[in-house]
């Protein structure tokens, strides 16, 4: 079986940027969750999730991000999402969780946020 979702990791100063690639549904959110948790275990002051390569996300993906947000609040660190595709944005909007998150238009804006 192929990996149809992968996560790229980069570091910009003290900020970690994760770029998941692929559709995030129940088949793939556990692996995203694991990657985010292992990054958050290192307690970086800021984590950016660049969603530019995520055309689709279901409630299991959103749940993963909510969990990441809760961890970052506990750690007093920042979590910023950027580059939401139209379909991902609309799922977030319907969930009404969009206000909970800090969302930037671009990766640069997310790094500055």
């Amino acid at each position, binding site marked *: *079986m192929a990996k149809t979702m992968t996560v790229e990791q980069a570091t910009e100063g003290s900020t970690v940027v994760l770029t998941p690639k692929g*559709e995030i*549904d129940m088949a793939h959110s556990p692996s995203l969750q694991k990657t985010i948790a292992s990054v958050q275990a290192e307690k970086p002051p800021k984590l950016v999730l660049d969603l530019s390569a995520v055309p689709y996300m279901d409630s299991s993906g*959103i*749940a993963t991000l909510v969990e990441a947000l809760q961890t970052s609040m506990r750690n007093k660190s920042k979590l910023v999402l950027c580059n939401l595709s139209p*379909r991902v944005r609309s799922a977030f909007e319907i*969930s009404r969780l969009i206000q909970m998150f800090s969302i930037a238009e671009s990766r640069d804006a997310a790094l500055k946020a």
Partner: protein
Amino acid sequence: MSRDPDISIRIFSAPEFLRPVRVMVDALASQCGFDDHSCGLISLAMDEALANVMRHGYKGQRDGRIWISAWTHESPDSLEVVIEDLGVSVDPRTIRGRDLEDVRPGGLGVHFIRHTMDECSWEQRPGGGMRLRMLKMVPAAAPEPPR
């Protein structure tokens, strides 16, 4: 509803079949006349309904069977989908979206389904398992101006 479904699908309760089914439903919705935004919501609702069957109906077992039937209706244009399983059968009244004020992971799936579809109802199948019927109408196009 009495006529045979335009498309019938049988899959196993394994998450890797979520994407093949939702892209098919997306294409069918687009055929029906839904715009891209609605197609996205419909395939999301589909995905959530199937994920619930896999998680709650079949408790994560990968070898349960799930049957999907889809009808495209005309005048008025709409898409009807029925999902059936042989998993754990629950009182339909217990199937409800969580309170959105309660920020925690999970509990969003049913909210997405209800938000998207014009009709959705769960029932216990006489032979065991659950049956979910969902319907969405294509919004009437703006009337063409006379020339």
